[in-house]
Every structure is written in C-alpha cells, then in structure tokens.
C-alpha cells in the first residue's frame, strides 16, 4: 500500500509567530498523480510546499516524501525531489547552460551525464538556440522554461511546482501546462502543483485540495468537487440587470437562500444559492428592488463556485466581489486578490 504513496502528511503545521500559516494539514499524494493545491493568496500553499521540500521545518506534525521523513531524512529527501518555486531559481548574469551546469554539478552529474541531460532538457523546451545567452536577456516565458527544466536535472520522482504559470502570457501558460502533463504521462513523475487559477487546477489535476487560511477545506477530484454543488437544490445563475444598484446586491445578499454573489461588471451578477425555490426568490427580490432583468443564464458550477460555496461568504468575499471584475485574466477565472505578480 505504501508503495503507491508518494507523499503523506499527518497534521502538518507551520506557525510564524502567532500566525498559523498551515494548520494541521493531512493528505496523501499517490505516485504518478498530479495533485493540486488551490487557494487564494496567503492560504498556505507555498508554506506547505516549502515544508515538503525541506526548506522550512514544520512547527508540528509529520510528513514523508518518497517514504522518507522530511524532518529526520531531509538530506535524503532532497535527492528525490525537484522544485520549481514561486520565484525564479536562476542567475540573470549566467547563460542558460551555465545555470544548468551549476545545478547539474550540485546534483553530482558527471561531465558526460551533464552534457547529455542538459541537451536533452533544452530540446524538450525548444531552447537549444538560446543556451549560450544570458538569462537576463530572456522573456518571462523563456525564463520559466529554463526554470522548469532546471528542476528536472536529477530526474526527480516527485516534482513540486509552486504557481508555475504565474505572470505568463496565455501562450506560455499553455506550453507550460502541456509540458507538465507530458512529464506526468511520459516519465510518470508525481507532480504537486499550487495555483490560484481555477481553470488550471481543473484541467491539470487528478485530485485537488482546496486550501484556505491554512486548512484543507475540501479534497477530491475536480469532477467530484463540482458535483458537490451541482445537485438539485444548488443553483448558479448569471443575471444581466442594466439598472443594477448596490442596494439590490445587498438585499439579495441578505436573502436566506443566497450563498454568494459576485458582481461581474456594472450590470452583471452571478448568484450562488440553494433551496428549491431559490430561483423564484432571487427574481422576486431583484424585481421588488426595482431591478429590470434582461437575461438570465443558469451555469454549470465551476471550481470557483465550489470554493465560494465551501468557504462561505464572509468578510473576505466582499473584497472578492469588488476585485473579481478586475482580476479576470485570459483564463477567465482567477480567484482572490491580485498584486502577487512575479517580481524580476
């Protein structure tokens, strides 16, 4: 049974002073799967990854990676993993080749092994022509390609990717996602990735842990998670109301059956509600407030709705309502506050 498990955590906890960044998190990752962590900024995704990569010591709890204890056998764990972290692990003044060479040497590759491996990896991401150019001259997407293959020099069984597509344009994003999938299917690499992009989580991950304020609030396949709220009494609907006012949104929010409201733009809102007569109540409330509904669209629930459903609509959702409209990236669904672009 343990053969099948790549990572196992048991009440893993990390505190920074009073702040509990990761709160008694327990989960398993099976060998060969793509496991995703989905959560807003500050949820604790990076901290969890850093603990599993032996970069930060857990305050409490245990975890094994490749059957090795992350606290006791930290040195051994490092031989089995690769990390693509939030920040680029690359030196701008070195060429791609020199960067890769440094890390190959740190992983004790012999000269022949190194040359072969570097060539092979560069080819994989179509960067052979650029290998002798300094990283500083690369575009963000090119940097990330080198950054990703750097983590593969030691042919890791388990690869950690922390927001691998953050700050990339749609084309580079698609390339990196395809590359991740290819690694998983062709080399059977176990992959743990974090993201705050719903679409990314949905399309890439075999299983998904939704993490919020340091806790895993749901863990299942994307399909099952979505099913959770697509039952009969759950409703996700998008309405166009040209004379939409804040008062209308507030009265709707006050309704018993309404779970969350997001304001998509000046005239459009998306309402998540439950209860048999929820749809009627919503329409009535809007009309009673003087709202003129020009169109209504009932939607398939997305992971975003799942997240809103699970975490409820409290103080932080108010902020989300405001930000969401601005934060819609090319991927459509992006969650939580922005402002965490990759610096460099």
């Amino acid at each position, binding site marked *: 049974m343990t053969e099948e498990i790549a990572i196992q955590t048991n009440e893993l906890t990390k505190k920074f002073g009073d702040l509990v960044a990761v709160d008694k998190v327990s989960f398993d990752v099976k060998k060969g799967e793509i496991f995703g962590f989905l959560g807003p900024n500050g949820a604790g995704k990076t901290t969890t990854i850093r603990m599993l990569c032996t970069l930060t*010591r857990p305050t409490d709890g245990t975890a094994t990676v490749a059957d090795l204890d992350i606290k006791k056998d930290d040195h051994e764990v490092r031989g089995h993993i690769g990390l693509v972290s939030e920040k680029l692990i690359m030196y701008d003044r070195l060429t791609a080749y020199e960067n890769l060479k440094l*890390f190959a*040497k*740190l992983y004790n590759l012999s000269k022949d092994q190194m040359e072969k491996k570097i060539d092979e990896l560069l080819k994989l991401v179509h960067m052979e022509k650029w290998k002798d150019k300094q990283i500083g001259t690369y575009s963000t997407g090119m940097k990330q390609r080198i950054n990703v293959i750097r983590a593969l020099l030691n042919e890791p069984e388990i690869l950690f990717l922390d927001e691998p597509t953050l700050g990339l344009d749609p084309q580079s994003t698609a390339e990196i996602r395809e590359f991740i999938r290819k690694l998983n299917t062709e080399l059977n690499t176990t992959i743990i990735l974090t993201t705050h992009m719903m679409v990314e989580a949905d399309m890439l991950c075999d299983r998904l842990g939704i993490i919020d304020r340091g806790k895993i609030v749901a863990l299942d396949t994307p399909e099952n998670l979505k099913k959770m709220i697509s039952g009969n009494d759950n409703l996700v609907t998008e309405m166009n109301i040209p004379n939409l006012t804040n008062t209308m949104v507030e009265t709707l929010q006050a309704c018993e059956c309404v779970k969350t409201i997001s304001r998509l733009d000046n005239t459009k809102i998306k309402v998540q509600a439950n209860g048999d007569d929820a749809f009627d109540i919503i329409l009535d409330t809007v009309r009673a407030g003087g709202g003129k509904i020009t169109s209504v669209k009932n939607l398939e629930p997305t992971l975003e709705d799942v997240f809103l459903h699970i975490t409820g609509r409290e103080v932080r959702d108010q902020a989300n309502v405001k930000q969401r409209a601005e934060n819609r990236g090319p991927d459509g669904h992006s969650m939580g506050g922005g402002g965490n672009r990759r610096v460099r």
Partner: protein
Amino acid sequence: MKAKQLLSHSAWICWKDLLEFARSKMALVMLLLMPLFMMIMVGFIFPDSAAMMEDVPIALVDLDSGPMGENFTMQLEGLNEQTGMMVLSGATDIEDIRTQIYAGDIDGGIVIPANFTQNIMAGQQGTIIIMTDQSNPQLSMQTQQALSYVIDEMGTYAAIGMLSASDSNTTLATVQPYTVEIEDLVEGDPSYFQFVAPGIMAMVVMMSLMTGLPHAISYEKDTGTLDGMLVAPIHRLAIILGKVLAQTTRGMIQGILILLLAMLLFGVVIYGNILIVLLIMLLTVLSFVGLGILVTSFTDKEETASMIMMTMMFPMMFLGGVFFPIEQMPGFMQTISSVLPLTYATSAMRKVMILGAGMGDITTEILFMVIFGLVFLLISVPMFKRAMNK
C-alpha cells in the same frame, strides 16, 4: 568522499559567484574605484606634500660642535630661505624642544646629535633627529614627512660634493650621508601612505567578508535563488564555503590592487616579504570569516544585513588602527582595539611591509587572528546551519 563532494560543490558555487561578479560591470568598477577612492581621500585628508607647508615653527639644536653640523645648519637655513617652509628658532637641548612643543610654541624640532661630524668623518651616516608634536597626528605626520624630505634632499646635495673626494668604505654613507631618525614616533616610515596602505589592505579583506558575505547570502535569499541550492542534496556548509571562497578571492584581488596602486601612484615601498603579506591577508580572511557567517545567520533580509554590517564595521575601521596609530587613542578605546582582529591584521601587515619584519616578529598577531577566527567559526557554523533550516 563526502568531504570531496563538499569541496567540489563549494568550488562550483564559488565559480558561479565569481562569474556573476565578473559579468557585473558595476561590481568591477567598484572593485577598482573603491581602493583608488580611499587612497585619494586619505591623501587629501592627510596631505603629504612638503610644498603645502609654510611657516611652521621649528626649533633647531646643534649639539655637534664639528664642521658637519655647521654645514648642515647652513644648508637647512639656505633651503628654508628659498621655500619658506619653516620659521627656525633655537633651543638648548632635546628637553628644551620637548618643553617648547608642550607649550605649543613650536610644532617640531630638528636635532643634530653630538657625534654627527664624527660619524660622517668615520664614513658612516650622520643621524638627524626629528621630533614632532604627536598630539596632532596629521600635523606631526606632515612635519615629519616634510622634514625627512628636506633632509633627504640635502643629503643628496651633500653627496654630490662628497663623491669626488670619497675615501670612505660605506657606499650608503656616500650616497646618503644624512639619515633621519624619528624620535618618539610610534612606528614605521614617515609617509602617511606607507602608514595607511597596509591597514587599508587588511580592511578591504575584512570588508569583503563582513559585507560581501552577508550580502551574497541575503541577496540570494531575497531573490529566491538560495532555495535552489538548499533543495539540492548538498551539505549546507558547501554553500557558505563556496561564498567564502568567492568573497576571499574578491577581497584578495582588491587588496592586491590597493598594494599596486599604493606602490605605483603613491610611492609606497614594501620592505618585507610579499609572501608574508599575502599570508597575512589570508589570515585576515580566517579571522573574519566566522564573524561574517555569524552576521549572515542573524540576518533575514538584505537591508538588515547591510545595517548590522555598517554598525559593526565603522568602529572596527576606526579602532583597528588603520588610519590612526592606536597609541594615540584614549585608554578605553585602546582596550577595545586590543580585541579586534583588524588591529592585529593591520599591525602585522604594517610590521612586515614597513619594517620588513619576518614571521617571528608577528607571532602574537598571527596567534590572535587564528584563535579569534577559530572561536567565531565554532560559534557561527552551527548558527548558520540552524538559520538555513528555519
């Protein structure tokens, strides 16, 4: 096997650091500019040119009753008439000069000792004693330098006259009939550059470890690249060792640049063995490496690192005897000086470079640097390992 890997890893990390460094134009310019700037600054603060002196009150005592003393006095007066450097007055003996200096009447004195004529007649060098007001180190240094320069010039002049009629056996006495002895001076040669160059060399080595090392680590921590090394299965010490090697190389290059600048532009001469000079530089590295690592382990962010460094460096720079002789400092500061490795590095460097001292003369300094270095390494290495594992 493990040790070999550790060394190999640190060598590659050092390679990476030096490569980055060599490709940073700014860093290269600073490498050259900093020493040059420092030497020039020092040169301006402590002017060394005799031409800058004017009407300095100096007492002249001729204790020698022979013709050579008289000759010297005449030469000095003649030269002074042309340059207007000094205002010459008289004094009865060395004690009198001392009293007059204490009273502030004169800034220095020139003494022609009793056996001056006799020595020169015997084919030896004639010694001239120079005394200066040491309570004012700049002026003292300046006066000394100017006087030494003047006496040197006069010596050359006298030598020309003596060459033809020479029957003496000492060539030195012919070429340089007058030699200067500086009374009550702390140590070394009168040139201020000669005095500060060894200290500055020790200081840049110190700086490369005390600022370069924490900066190198905290910079990588801030940008996130340090994680790449930490997540690799390498010994934590390989990281710090690699950085130490790189910083040492940089510090040594800079130290040698200073030496070359001092020699080429400022006429500094090394009297001792250059290999011992290099050895002292390495020992300076050793004595500061632990302290550098310690500070590195305590600093999370680059800014904090820089701030801590600055607060630690300044006292060291000024109390380490680089710019002023320690003997001129108040007692409690001398006590602080006596526990700073820079003091010993500077002292050893100065003894070797200026006085031509050998290994045997600097054992105290070497011992202190080695012990200080080892103690701080023992404290800092576990600290560093812990800090990397937070």
